[in-house]
C-alpha cells in the first residue's frame, strides 16, 4: 500500500526534527490526517510503529497520536464552502481511490455544488502532516 511511503516521510521528518532539537529520545509523535487523502488512521499508526522500530533508536519507544482533520473545500469562483464528505457521496469508489493517491486529483472529479466550478481550494484537511514531536 502506498501509505507506507507517507509513513516513511513522517518518521524521517520526526527524526530530522529530533536531531534539530537535540532530543536523545522522542516520546510522542503527533500526526494530523486530512480527510481528503482518505487514510485509515489506525492502519497508518500501525505502519508508523513498524517503521519506528527499525529507523533510529531514539524513535523506537515513541507513542504515535493521530487526529483526523475534516476536509473543507472553498470555491474560488463563487465563494461557496462545503465539506469533502458531501462530495464524496457522489464519487465512485474508483474516483475516490484516485484522490486517495493524489489529493489534487479532486479537481478532476469534484465540482463546486453551487456553481459547478472545478476551481476550488482545499482550505483544510488535505493530507498527512507531522504536527509536532515531544521528547527529551
Amino acid at each position: 500500500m502506498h501509505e507506507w511511503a507517507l509513513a516513511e516521510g513522517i518518521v524521517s521528518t520526526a527524526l530530522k526534527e529530533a536531531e534539530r532539537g537535540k532530543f536523545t529520545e522522542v516520546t510522542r509523535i503527533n500526526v494530523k490526517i486530512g480527510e481528503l487523502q482518505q487514510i485509515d488512521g489506525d492502519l497508518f499508526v500501525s505502519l508508523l510503529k513498524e517503521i519506528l522500530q527499525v529507523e533510529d533508536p531514539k524513535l523506537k519507544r515513541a507513542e504515535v497520536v493521530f487526529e483526523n482533520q475534516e476536509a473543507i473545500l472553498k470555491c474560488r469562483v463563487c465563494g461557496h464552502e462545503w465539506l469533502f464528505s458531501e462530495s464524496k457521496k457522489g464519487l465512485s469508489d474508483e474516483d475516490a481511490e484516485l484522490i486517495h493517491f493524489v489529493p489534487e486529483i479532486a479537481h478532476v472529479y469534484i465540482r463546486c455544488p453551487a456553481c459547478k466550478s472545478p476551481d476550488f481550494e482545499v482550505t483544510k484537511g488535505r493530507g498527512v502532516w507531522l504536527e509536532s514531536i515531544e521528547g527529551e
Partner: protein
Amino acid sequence: MDPRLTIIERRLKDIKRIIAVSGGKGGVGKSLTASVMALIFSRLGYKTGLFDLDFGGPSIHTVLGLKGALPREEKGIIPPDAHGIKFMSIIHYAGDNPSPIRGIDISNAMIELLAITRWGRLDFLILDMPPGIGDSTLDVIRLLKRAEFLIITTESRVTLDVVKKLLNLLKELKAPIIGVIENMKLTRSSFLSKEIGALDVPFLGEIDFDRGLEDAIGNVDHILKTRFAESMKEIIVSKEIFKLKDR
C-alpha cells in the same frame, strides 16, 4: 511539517542522473525530446525513467502510444513499464479527463508523486517539464537539486527571448545546465548557436524540422526511425556531457 519533503531525496538516491527537459515556450518539442531521449537511453542499455511533469497538458503517453498502463502499490507506487522505460504521469490518475489544477496544487501533486514513487535503481530519470518558469521549474530546482537542465528551443527570436530568461534564472539559482538543443530548424542560420554561445552555455546541436515525425507519433518503432530520433541519438552519443560518470 510536511512529511513528504524529507523523503524525496531518499526516493531518488539510486538514480545516477536526473535530466529536466525544459524550454521557455510551449510547442518547441520538449515532450518529444524527453520521450525520444528516454527511448534512446533505454535502447542503449541504460535503466531509464520518464516523468511527465506537465500536469496541465500531459502528452508523453500520446507520444509513446500508451494506454491502460497503471502503477502498482508496493510500499509506495511502482511506475508501470512503457517500452522498457519506467513511466510516471498524472494521466495514471486523471485519465483522459482535463486536470484544471492551479499552480500551488500542481506543486502539491508533484511533491506527492515524488514522495511516493519508488523508481528503484536508474541510470537516467528524464523529466518532461511544462513550458515557462513556473511552480514546476522552481520545485525541481528546490527539491531535485541534482537535476540538470536540458533546454530545447527553436530559432525563433520569440522563443529565444524566453529561453534567455530561463537560462539566466538557472544560472542565478546555480542549477546545473547541460546545454541547449535547437529543434525544428528550417534555415542554415547560425544565429541561435552564436546567441547561446554568448551566454556561455553549451550549444549541443541542431535538429532539422522533420515532416515525417507527426505520422510516427504513438508508435515507438516508427519514432525511433525518424530523422528527429536519429539526430537526437547522434547528439546523445557524441556529446561527452551525456556520458554516465560514477557518482
